[in-house]
């Protein structure tokens, strides 16, 4: 009778002992699989959070260096009217952004932006209606008194609206059409409310011009009328307020640099205000910023700034959870291995009599140990097979609980940090957010954390099974040491 057949018969007939070993291995395998799955989920959650937080850094013109400025005569109507300071450093352009992206690894995309204001009109020259919350204050009334200045809206030139700060953070959402890019020509994005108010849809045309308050002898507002076409429509997902009601997010028009330069030709050579780069993993932000500074800031024409505190404060609870689960898994495996070794040692000792009988029949020791090993592997295979569905259920339950806890920690951390995904006041865009805490509550990663599926995948199962088989093999071999070391006479002596 082969040792494998003996092993199968033992497993099938010694049901109590088989069940004991099965339960021990089931607990170990389930704990290991659950732990691996929860760790994977925690890692996914960390990545989601970091991606949702949108690790960014901003490159701006360095205006503080006096050596970058020079005085030039200001000529008005052929007459020198004085001097003006002109920045002489390298300007921020789309090409600069593309060059940096090409040179530095880990950058997902960028958006160069320039914000100004313009007056939207129909093709017939009539003012378009602006979205208003019906709370015109004195400042609005004051603006109205300056002719069409009260009809101005924020114009934001963008090289890629997908990476605009508000779109990237999810506060604005493109619901129709295409994003505006550097090469979008006359394409613009308008808000859903603005489009509905003026009966605009994707493909419709209207015009933009500069306010007549900037009129001079050389340049009238009528000279700046620029025809644009609605390329996409966005929706405001988050609540926002602005300094002037006309400069709200609802009235903002996203356009190309060429469009804005055509509307405000006196500033056409100024370049973009800033470039916001989005990185793949905010964890790499420090390294990426160093690379960017090394790549382009030798001239001192730019400043680079970033704030990683938000990411760290939010991901810290998840990292703690990751460590907790790791220690949990290690603890279970160590305890499990100890219990397994004890149980298997007891089994082998208990079977010394059987070993002696087999030895007396001339069965080599190796085949006796082989039988014990096959028995353990058979039971382990059954336990591991059962642990996959059980581990999935346990992992989902454990993972949900831990991720919910981590979510609370994230929310608390976000509020405490003062960041929390809020959009800070930004005069350059003309859009400010009065109540940042409202964004903190709608912080997207909080929702996505508990939505994460905690699954026992194939890789986890293979790792657990491999480790389990190694553990079982080691335990059987170690527990068989007495059998391997004792002489046949000693073993048979125990049989009398």
């Amino acid at each position: 009778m082969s040792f494998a057949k003996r092993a199968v018969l033992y497993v099938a007939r010694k049901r109590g002992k088989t069940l004991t070993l099965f339960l021990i291995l089931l607990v170990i395998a389930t704990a290991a699989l659950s732990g691996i799955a929860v760790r994977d989920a925690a890692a996914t959650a960390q990545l989601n959070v970091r991606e949702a937080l949108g690790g960014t850094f901003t490159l701006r013109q360095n205006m503080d260096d006096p050596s970058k400025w020079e005085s030039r005569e200001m000529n008005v109507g052929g007459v020198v009217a004085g001097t003006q300071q002109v920045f002489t450093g390298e300007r921020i352009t789309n090409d600069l952004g593309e060059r940096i992206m090409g040179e530095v690894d880990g950058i997902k995309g960028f958006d160069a932006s320039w914000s100004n204001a313009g007056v939207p009109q129909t093709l017939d020259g009539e003012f378009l209606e602006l979205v208003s919350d019906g709370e015109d204050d004195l400042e609005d009334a004051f603006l109205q008194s300056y002719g069409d200045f009260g009809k101005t809206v924020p114009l934001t030139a963008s090289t890629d609206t997908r990476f605009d700060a508000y779109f990237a953070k999810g506060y604005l959402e493109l619901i129709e059409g295409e994003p505006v890019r550097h090469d979008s020509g006359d394409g613009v994005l308008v808000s859903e409310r603005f489009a509905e108010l003026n009966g605009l849809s994707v493909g419709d045309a209207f015009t933009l011009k500069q306010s007549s308050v900037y009129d001079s002898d050389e340049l009238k507002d009528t000279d700046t009328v620029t025809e644009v076409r609605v390329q996409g429509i966005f929706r405001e997902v988050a609540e926002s307020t602005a300094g002037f009601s006309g400069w709200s997010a609802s009235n903002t028009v996203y356009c190309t640099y060429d469009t804005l330069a055509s509307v405000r030709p006196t500033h056409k050579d100024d370049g973009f205000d800033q470039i916001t780069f989005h990185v793949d993993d905010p964890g790499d932000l420090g390294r990426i910023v160093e690379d960017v500074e090394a790549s382009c800031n030798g001239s001192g024409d730019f400043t680079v700034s970033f704030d990683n505190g938000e990411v760290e404060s939010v991901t810290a609870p998840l990292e703690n959870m990751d460590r907790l689960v790791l220690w949990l898994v290690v603890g279970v495996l160590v305890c499990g291995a100890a219990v397994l070794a004890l149980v298997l040692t007891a089994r082998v000792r208990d079977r010394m009599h059987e070993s002696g009988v087999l030895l007396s029949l001339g069965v080599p020791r190796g085949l006796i140990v082989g039988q014990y090993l096959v028995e353990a592997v058979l039971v382990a295979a059954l336990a591991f097979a059962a642990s996959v569905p059980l581990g999935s259920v346990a992992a989902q339950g454990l993972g949900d609980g831990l991720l919910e806890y981590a979510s609370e920690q994230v929310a608390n951390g976000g509020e405490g940090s003062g960041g929390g995904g809020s959009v800070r006041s930004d005069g350059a865009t003309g859009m400010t957010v009065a109540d940042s805490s409202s964004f903190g509550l709608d912080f997207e990663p909080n929702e996505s954390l508990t939505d994460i599926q905690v699954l026992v995948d194939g890789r986890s199962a293979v790792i657990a099974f491999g480790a389990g088989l190694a553990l079982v093999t080691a335990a059987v071999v170690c527990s068989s040491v007495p059998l391997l070391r004792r002489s046949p006479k000693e073993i048979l002596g125990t049989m009398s």
Partner: protein
Amino acid sequence: MSNARSEAPIASGGASLSDEAAARILRAEAARAGTAEAVVAAAARTAEGLEEPPLIEVDDVRYSYGSKESRTKRSVLKGATAAFRRGTMYAVVGASGCGKSTLLSLLGGLDLPKQGEVRFAGEPLDAAGLAEHRRRNVSFVFQGYNLIDYLTAAENVSLATKLPPLPLLEKVGIGPDEARRNVLALSGGQQQRVAVARALASEAPVVLADEPTGNLDEVAAEGVADILRDTAHRMGKCVICVTHSPMLARKADRVFRLAKGRLIKA
């Protein structure tokens, strides 16, 4: 015995026959005759008349427990010498602790003597290796049956052979129904018969039995003793029993008494 002696010259008269061949013929004749007396007589003729070379023998074997430095060193074998031949059932008797089981373990290749030699077919055991000796040359029957408790009777026998187990079990009086039962469901006598069947199933020519009837009632013990004797006589095996049982000793062809560390023909 006298018969055996008188017939010996007849068998050995054929000059072309070797001693071993002649012994084989005698055993075959005896088996054909079918009577226990004839079998016993044939075995006796083989053993004494033809001087068949011993199958396994101990030669001036000495064995003691405890190390040389130990104050509790105890010598159990002090120059034991004996030869054991095929087709014969031997009984080794003696007081408890006199070294009977030690002698059996030395014959079985479970240990080596401190001095002297154990030989199988004329070769020292340690020449071919003890494990090889255990695997090929000897099979054991123990007092405690030593069956594997999660196997049936038939499966226990199958541990020792690839041949069908049922005919072997039938030879020792275990029917097909009992053969398919778990051994724990059998009586003590039946279990010992299964153990004997397992020993017989092995192709090993030497059967070493340690108190094979020690746990059995009289009837069962006699049955097992008969089986062991038949094993020697019909299958030509060398059966060596260590026992306290007078009944088993009576059934044996040869009896050795182990006293003061030496084997003495009884």
